[in-house]
């Protein structure tokens, strides 16, 4: 049961189609876990439908109708099938981006218990990355210059505020300090969308900061 959800403003921007692609992908991945938010998004899309219906109609000629009718037999666009080897529980969208198994990704080791793999979404302002934390492992205390969205994909972690399991969506803003610790028993994989690189706050880890850049794109 998913307990932590995106704030309404993200769901609204998602339903209106104005959320940047990396954030949008993170919200969509949460929706695949969470029926509550799916229903909210449906209602939020109804706001769009209601506005749409009240737009001032703009004239469209019948010749355009003929053009549409003539194109009905055009071949439909091809769509990607789900990778057969992939994890069933993974949202389809992430499956597309990961394209295979976690093990096939390029993992960059940051500390003994934390590795990061950057995925390409085309979003130039947001980094879209998978964080892999060894069971019981800790991410050293850090802050973010901007905002961070996190979605738990497998395993779980806890921080100063609570405990999170697959499907849980967590937003941290600005200079909130936190120290996530993976739960015992299973390694934790999270999706994190950042608009500024994370910054370690303890002296012992600060030397890593210059090495961590925002990997947007």
């Amino acid at each position: 049961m998913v307990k932590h959800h995106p704030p309404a403003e993200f769901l609204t921007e998602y339903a209106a189609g104005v959320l940047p692609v990396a954030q949008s992908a993170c919200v969509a991945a949460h929706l695949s876990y969470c029926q509550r938010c799916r229903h909210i998004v449906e209602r939020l899309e109804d706001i769009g439908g209601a506005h749409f219906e009240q737009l001032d109609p703009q004239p469209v000629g019948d010749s355009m109708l003929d053009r549409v009718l003539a194109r009905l037999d055009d071949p439909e666009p091809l769509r990607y099938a789900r990778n057969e080897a992939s994890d069933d529980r993974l949202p389809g969208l992430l499956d597309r981006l990961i394209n295979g198994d976690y093990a096939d990704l390029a993992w960059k080791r940051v500390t003994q218990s934390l590795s990061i793999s950057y995925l390409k979404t085309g979003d130039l302002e947001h980094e879209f990355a998978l964080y892999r934390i060894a069971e019981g492992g800790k991410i050293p205390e850090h802050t973010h210059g901007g905002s961070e969205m996190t979605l738990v994909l497998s395993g779980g972690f806890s921080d100063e505020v609570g405990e999170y399991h697959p499907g849980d969506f967590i937003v941290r803003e600005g200079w909130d300090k936190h120290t996530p610790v993976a739960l015992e028993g299973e390694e934790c994989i999270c999706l994190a969308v950042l608009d500024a690189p994370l910054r370690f706050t303890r002296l012992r880890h600060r030397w890593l900061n210059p090495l961590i850049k925002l990997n947007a794109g």
Partner: protein
Amino acid sequence: MYASRSDRYLSATWWRKQPRAPRPQHKTVASGTCQRGEGLTSGAKRSSPWVKVRIVPRLPGFFRHFAPLIKAFALSGSSLSATHADELVQEVMLKVWQKAGGFNPEKAAASTWVYTIARNCRTDMFRRLQKFDTPLASDDFELESEEEESFIVLHTRRGSERVRELMGELPPDQAQILAKVYMEGKSHSEAAAELDLPLGTVKSRVRLAIQKLQALMEA
């Protein structure tokens, strides 16, 4: 009675009579159906010839109702040229046609359904025009939704009608911002800049509107 003008065009006629096309099962996609590349599959299954026989005669009515709205949507926020707006109308109409088998009138209002297709096509068109390079198309964001219990479906359909009623009751300042966000495709911060309002004000107006919605949904 129909909840709206748009529903009248689609009510109890061709949408409902179509058999519900089975959702493509990823697991069962035979590799033989991939024609142009590994892992790609055609969505063509959805429009069987039978569906075409039912839909084609209805398309003109549907087109005359929705095409002018789609064009208005394309032009709102005046970010697309008239040529691109016309192109968008065609793209949306073709998508409607391709997806017709997946539309469930009990789950969503017709206007909402067309709106979501237009929204996705517009996002993709913006990205194409800006040469924005992403591996994701907005269709990829569609959920592989499961079959839902009928009482939930009923609940969501009623919810959709209530949302529409509510929209008429919102104070103008809240309605104005929602229109900017939804129709003109502006983010909260872009809407704030255009209306010369602090971002916090925009966010709180949206939040107020959404809270009313939520209260209604839970009532």
